[in-house]
Every structure is written in structure tokens, then in C-alpha cells.
């Protein structure tokens, strides 16, 4: 089918206002006649559930956690961007829009990004009114800090736990609706399939994680706010349960999956220490405000960091990019870290890290000031590594963190399946090929508070007067049977290896070949290895226990199975895109200085992939991208 992004016509700065007027509205008295399912209760899901319920819609919210507040949005550390220009340093909606398009390496849809920048100011207002305890200056007004990829200070934060506070604000707002009876909350309930009838989304199939019971739920519209797929790397900053299943199931039912190869590797995470490592912990990007990144110039360096004189330290980011220094965007910082470590300059027992050094900042501002800004992050680091970052530099290394790819959505956040929406990290979003720091929180809340509540009416209004498809319809029965079969199959395979083992192996293949730097032969290897591993999985995975009680292995089984298929698509997408842009770096396409070299002539488009069944690769559809406002340039942070 032809991709229609439904971007409104007219001047960029007026598109969204015009669109809000042009799209269909549902009369307030009629909103209560509609039922909406929201899957996922992170920033996007909780804010959407709360706002839709406030408007009058009947919302059923689903989370597989024991409480909505466990969503991984809670872990975001650094901050949220907004074009408030409180700092009077030249910020504006246009600048935030510009920085985001440029930061996304010109692979995002301009209109979406402009809207994001416009509503960013409303998000801060909303959060403050909910009681989010943002950091304040002494006069009581909001404080800001700067983040990577920006030359203005536009990031609002709550210590090093901004994601937690924003999620609590949205969660609390949603719980008020639960109290009012407007949101029906299903906890410990995992969506295992999407149900469509005549090509339209009409509901979901869920599994109760405590009892194993499979249930059907129907609605007029389904919203997936289920997060990103970074866990395909196995080692990532994601939580253990984060997965792609909800989005992937939708993909298999017809929702195109866009740009899966756009994965973000975050430059400052704690390096892995051994095989048993289960995840990599993020050290907030805000640390790069004060920390200086360096490696020893000598490859055989054995001295401790403190004894290496300045002249023998290679501050590689400061030297290569004078204008942005340590605050270059994430993809640039990550690739540079990989380069120096691959060249043999790595630090730490496994020589797999680089230094993030606060000695100068402590000397300049005093230990108390540094503790005030980063205290909890420093404590976190010390707990994990046993090292004290106030006296020795932190060791960091890039790790998978965010996925810019996701379900393709139009300007209304609707996927290619009518009635199915995707919000937050689950959609292919507004970040293009690279997301700037502090903008994921912004996007999740923008989608949930200020976009979806408007745009969802457009597909609902024509349905006024009709009930959702009843759950005893054959489509539900079929989908239920499929889900039950799959679960039974997993329990019956009786192989020799745990799903954890397979996930770890998949992660290695993906990190090696579809990680920070990709090339043709590596990607082809990845495709064949992943396919082989997937087939082995279905023969040899061992899932013990039963389906009638809590069984985390069984939960994992389905999620890992879906990761295989996604991994294959990621590799295909990366192979197809013969250019480097943002988080997708093809070694064959780089500038003389080793920066990403785009091919705007051939690749200025979104790759949206259509499922063709397990044995046939997906079909690619293109959404051409036009850049009216932001002239295409080579990104330079020098």
C-alpha cells in the first residue's frame, strides 16, 4: 500500500494548528461511546491513557508489570528538552526543531519534528502542574542544563532521575482516572497478539502472567506504547523485560516497521565486566557537561589514570570537535570511543572502556557542587564497579540504549493498520537516524499528552454508532488459538538450552555486525547467522514449568523468538541502506575524517518494511523525505 504520511499542507509553523482544526473531532458527549486500548504504561502510554480518559474516552490500559510505574521510562536520567528559552540564550521552537532535524541526520519527517518542538513547551507546563519536582534556581524558577547536540541550555531536569519523575507524574494522572473509573487498568497482563478484522485493528490477545489465562479485549482503537527494541542486543541499557513483541506482532499483522537499523548506542555506559553481565548501566549523558573524555596516548599504558600527565592524555573529542567538544551528539561520541578502543587505547581490566574524568570539574567547582549535580549517578557507579569517581575517573563505553526505528506512523501517529496507533519509542518517531539527548522523554509525553488525544479522533469519528468487534468473533478466536498454540509449542520443545542462552548469542551477533559500525559482509553474515540461530532456537530451547502460574522463562521464550525476526530485519535494513546516517554507520560510506557520509540523493527516505511471512523477506516501501525548512548539510560539530 502507498504510504501516506498525511502531513498537512501550508507553512511549517502552521501545519499543526491547521491540522488540529481540519481533523475530525469527536463531540464530548460522544467520547464516552468509544473504547480505546492502550498497551504499555510508560511515558507515552500513561500520558495517553490519562489524557484520553480525561477527554471522556473509555480506556483499558495494559501493562505486563505489577504496577504501571515499573515501565522503563522510569530509568531515564538526564532531562527533558523544551524550547522555553528561559535561559535567554537564543533557544526557540525553530531552533529546537532545527537541532532535532540536524541531530537526526536529516532522516526524520520535518513536520513531525516541528510539532514536537511546538508542544515541548506545553509538556513542561503540564509536568510542573502535576507536581514534578524539577530543579529550581534560588528564586524559585525552573533550572536548565545543556545536553549533547545543542548549543543552548534547554534541558529541564529533576536531579538525575528526570524520567522517574515525569513517569510518576503521568502514572499519577492515570491513577486518578483509574480512581474515577475512566481507565480500567490490567496489570501483569502481556499483549501477545494484535487482532484485526478486514484489515482494521479491533483488539488484542493477552496473557495473564500470574495465571496463564489468555483473554481477548476489543476496542475501537488500539495504541501501542510498548517501548523500543534495544534488547535485541541482549546487553543494553534496557530493563530485562523490555521487548519488541507487541510492535512485532502488529508488524506481522500488517503494520510496516520503519528504519529498524536506526539504533542508538549511548556513549556513556559502564563497560561490561564478564560473561554473566545481564545489562549495561547507563551513566547519564549530562555527565558529559562536566566530565572530560580521554584515553592514554600510549597503547601499552599501565599507569593509573591519576599518574598519566596531561600531555600523554588523548582528549579525542575535544581535539577533533572544538565547537562541541565532549558534547557532540551520541552517535559521534560512540563511534569515536569504539575507534580509540579498537585501536588499542582502551582502559580498565578488560581494556574495553574510555575515561570520563571529573578531576578538573572538581578542582574548578568543588566536590560539593559536583555532588549536588551528579551525586546519585556517582553513587550508582561506585555500587556497580566498586570504584570512587570522585577520586578516579569513571570508565565508560558505548552500549545500546534507544531505537529510533519502530512502527511506521503517519502524522496522526497511526500505523499502516487503520485503528492501530503507536506512540513513544515504539513508533519510528521524530528522531530520524539519531536521537538527541533529553528528547525521548519529550517525544513520549508529546505523543501521549498533546498529539494522540487530538489525532485519534480522526479515525474514531467515522465509527460513531458502531460497537467494537465483539470478542466472540472468529477473528478473536483464531488469534487466541494461535497464541495458545505458540505457548504450548514452547513448553513442548524440550530442548537443551535456556532462552537466556539464545538471547545472549543473538546479542553477540547483533552487536558485532549490526552495532556501531556495519559493513556488507558483516550484515550478510548477520542475516544468515541469525536465521540459523532462530531455527536452532525453535528446535532446541528448553522452557520448564507450565503455563498455569508465573513463568518468566515462558514469557522470555516468546520475546526472544520475536527478537530473532526483528534482528534479521535490522540487518536487511542496514544492508539495504548504502549510506551512513546518524546511528546507522556503514564503513563503506564515510568522509575522510571518519564521519557519517549520507547519500541524500538515494536515501533521503524512510524505509518502511512490510511483512511477508516467516520465509520471505519483507518488502520495502519508501516514504520520501523532503526538507523544506532545514537545509541539508553534512553534520559537523567541529
Amino acid at each position, binding site marked *: 500500500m502507498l504510504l501516506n504520511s498525511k502531513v498537512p499542507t501550508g507553512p511549517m509553523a502552521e501545519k499543526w494548528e491547521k491540522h488540529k482544526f481540519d481533523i475530525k473531532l469527536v463531540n464530548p458527549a460522544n467520547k464516552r461511546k468509544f473504547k480505546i486500548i492502550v498497551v504499555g504504561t510508560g511515558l507515552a502510554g500513561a500520558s495517553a491513557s490519562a489524557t484520553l480518559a480525561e477527554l471522556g474516552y473509555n480506556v483499558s490500559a495494559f501493562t505486563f508489570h505489577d*504496577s504501571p510505574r515499573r515501565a522503563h521510562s522510569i530509568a531515564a536520567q538526564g532531562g527533558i528538552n523544551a524550547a522555553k528559552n528561559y535561559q535567554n540564550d537564543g533557544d526557540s521552537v525553530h531552533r529546537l526543531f532545527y537541532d532535532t532535524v540536524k541531530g537526526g541526520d536529516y532522516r526524520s519527517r520535518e513536520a513531525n519534528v516541528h510539532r514536537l518542538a511546538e508542544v515541548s513547551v506545553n509538556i513542561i507546563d503540564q509536568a510542573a*502542574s502535576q*507536581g514534578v519536582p524539577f530543579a529550581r534556581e534560588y528564586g*524559585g524558577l525552573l533550572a536548565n542544563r545543556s545536553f549533547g547536540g545543542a548549543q543552548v541550555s534547554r534541558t529541564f531536569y529533576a536531579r538525575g532521575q528526570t524520567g522517574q519523575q515525569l513517569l510518576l507524574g503521568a502514572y499519577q494522572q492515570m491513577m486518578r482516572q483509574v480512581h474515577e473509573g475512566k481507565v480500567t487498568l490490567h496489570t501483569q497482563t502481556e499483549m501477545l497478539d494484535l487482532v484485526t478484522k478486514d484489515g482494521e485493528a479491533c483488539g488484542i490477545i493477552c496473557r495473564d502472567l500470574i495465571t496463564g489465562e489468555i483473554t481477548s479485549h476489543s476496542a475501537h482503537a488500539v495504541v501501542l506504547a510498548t517501548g523500543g527494541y534495544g534488547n535485541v542486543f541482549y546487553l543494553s541499557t534496557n*530493563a530485562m523485560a523490555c521487548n519488541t513483541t507487541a510492535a512485532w506482532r502488529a508488524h506481522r499483522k500488517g503494520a510496516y516497521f520503519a528504519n529498524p537499523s536506526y539504533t542508538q548506542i549511548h556513549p556513556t555506559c559502564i563497560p561490561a565486566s564478564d560473561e554473566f553481565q*545481564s545489562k549495561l548501566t547507563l551513566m547519564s549523558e549530562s555527565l558529559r557537561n562536566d566530565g572530560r573524555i580521554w584515553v592514554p596516548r600510549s597503547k601499552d599504558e599501565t599507569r593509573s589514570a591519576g599518574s598519566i600527565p596531561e600531555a600523554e592524555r588523548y582528549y579525542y573529542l575535544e581535539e577533533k570537535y572544538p565547537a562541541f567538544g565532549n558534547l557532540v551528539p551520541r552517535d559521534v561520541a560512540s563511534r569515536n570511543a569504539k575507534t580509540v578502543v579498537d585501536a588499542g587505547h582502551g582502559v580498565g581490566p578488560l581494556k574495553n572502556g574510555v575515561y570520563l574524568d571529573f578531576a578538573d570539574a572538581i578542582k574548578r567547582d568543588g566536590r560539593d557542587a559536583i555532588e549536588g549535580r551528579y551525586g546519585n549517578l556517582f553513587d550508582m557507579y561506585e555500587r556497580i564497579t566498586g570504584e570512587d569517581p570522585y577520586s578516579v575517573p569513571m570508565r565508560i563505553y558505548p552500549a545500546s540504549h534507544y531505537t529510533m526505528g519502530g512502527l511506521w506512523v503517519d502524522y496522526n501517529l497511526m500505523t499502516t493498520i487503520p485503528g492501530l496507533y503507536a506512540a513513544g519509542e515504539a513508533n519510528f518517531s521524530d528522531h530520524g537516524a539519531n536521537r538527541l539527548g533529553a528528547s525521548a522523554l519529550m517525544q513520549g509525553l508529546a505523543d501521549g499528552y498533546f498529539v494522540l488525544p487530538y489525532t485519534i479522533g480522526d479515525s474514531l469519528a467515522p465509527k460513531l454508532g458502531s460497537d467494537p468487534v465483539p470478542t466472540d468473533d472468529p477473528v478473536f478466536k483464531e488469534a487466541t488459538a494461535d497464541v495458545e498454540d505458540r505457548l504450548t509449542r514452547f513448553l513442548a520443545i524440550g530442548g537443551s538450552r535456556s532462552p537466556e542462552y539464545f538471547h545472549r548469542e543473538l546479542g553477540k551477533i547483533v552487536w558485532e555486525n549490526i552495532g556501531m559500525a556495519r559493513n556488507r559482509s558483516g550484515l550478510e553474515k548477520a542475516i544468515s547467522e541469525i536465521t540459523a540461530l532462530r531455527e536452532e532456537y525453535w528446535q532446541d530451547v528448553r522452557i520448564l514449568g507450565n503455563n498455569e502460574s508465573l513463568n518468566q522463562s515462558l514469557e522470555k521464550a516468546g520475546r526472544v523468538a520475536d527478537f530473532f525476526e526483528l534482528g534479521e530485519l535490522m540487518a536487511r535494513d542496514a544492508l539495504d541502506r548504502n549510506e551512513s546516517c546518524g546511528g546507522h554507520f556503514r564503513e563503506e560510506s564515510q568522509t575522510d575524517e571518519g564521519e557519517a557520509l549520507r547519500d541524500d540523493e538515494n536515501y533521503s527516505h524512510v524505509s518502511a518494511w512490510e511483512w511477508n511471512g516467516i520465509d520471505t523477506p519483507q518488502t520495502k516501501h519508501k516514504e520520501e523525505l523532503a526538507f523544506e525548512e532545514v537545509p541539508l548539510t553534512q553534520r559537523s560539530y567541529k
Partner: protein
Amino acid sequence: MSQTLNLTLKIWRQEGPNAKGSFESYQANNIPDDASFLEMLDIVNESLIENNQVPIEFPHDCREGICGTCGVMINGRAHGQEIGTATCQLHMRKFNDGDTIVIEPWRAAAFPVVKDLVVDRSPLDKIVEAGGYITAPTGSAPDANEMPIPKDVAESSMDAAACIGCGACVAACPNSAGQLFTSAKLWHLNSLPQGQAERYKRTEEMVETMEQYFGSCTNHGECKEACPKEISLDFIAEMNKDYMKSKVKNRKKAGQK
């Protein structure tokens, strides 16, 4: 180079909410001391699966001390022996080779065991549902800088808002009281100008809901020691004050029937 430890683990196993449970003994050998506590359990589970034994269910997710999912009693202390540290942040270098570690789920009448080490903590959400919010419908907010908040008030509110909702306070409390959790949420919102409009109603509703599930606070102070975020007991005093005020203040305004 990291050391390895050989440990004896006594872990509570229970097949379901209505099953009788008991402690089972497991050997955890060659555990690297850089591993986290939960990674140690992963290693044990991998070897159980290899031996065709049903692995141990334990609560976990973010593994960075912020989501509040994890939490078990480790040698009689909620989240283990390190102050201000959640179970997932505890690393094996804090133990010694040859140690025996007893691992039991949170126990409280309001936290029934679901399976093995996993308990149901939904009453905490019920308390938030009863009033742990500020009524601020989307779109109606004034500019964020219109309500200045003194810096120390914002810091104090953030201190209270740092609660991760893990329930360690309830688990540690000899009375299974929910005061630390409830008072933290109350102070977070009650201390802010934005929270004033609903301050007393919120306090009443949340306290009275809390008392439907949990015991009463007699100031043992055990909760704060267990709390991974070291939430202050001062918030409990503030809640006690606010609750009294909420009952005492005649909240019917002049002219209201």
C-alpha cells in the same frame, strides 16, 4: 582480576499463591565478585535449567535500582546489608567465600506471595489511586514558571519523590506498616504549591486507604534503614501533622451546606 565465591543459598520456593512453600538449598559456585546479586541468581537459574529443574522466579527488571520491581529479604534484611541499595544494586564483592545466604520474599498480609520470591504489591498502587496525584488535566496548566517554588522546597519534594515504590519499608517494618511509602508520596505533593488545593483531602484519603492494608507505625525506624533511597522518617511526622489538620480544619467553607 575479580575473585570468585562459593556460596550456599537458602531460597524460598513456593509453587503458587495457595501452595505451601519452604526453603530449598542451592550451591552457587564460582560466582565472580563483580556480579550483582541478581546475576548470581541468573547463574543459579541457568544451572537449574541445565539440570531440568524449574528455575527460581524472582522479581526484577531495570537492574539499576530505580524501577522498584526487585526486592527480597537477604539474611533477614530487606534488600540486603548495604544501606541505600536495592537488591539489584548489591554486588557479590560484599559477600565472603563460603557464606550462606538466606533469601526470602517480602512478607506482609498485604503482599501475598505469588510464586517463589515474587509477591503482589498492588496495595501500594491502591494508595496512589486514592489520592497520590494533583488534579491537573492535560492542557490546563499555566506556564511552568508562574508558580515559583523555593529551591529548598523543590529539593525536599524531590527527596520524597525519589521513592521507587519497592515496598521494602513494608517488608522491613515489624508492624508491616506502609507509613514511609505513603508519607513520601504525600510530602512530595503536599510540599509543593501545586499540591495545596487538594492537600487535606489527599492526606485523608491516602492515609485511610493505607490503613486498610497495612499496620500502624510505632516508630521503629526500620523502614528507613531498608529503603534503597533512604527516604527520611521526617515525612512520616509531616503526614501525622497533615492528617490531624485534615480532620481538624472545618473544610466546609462558609455558606456551604
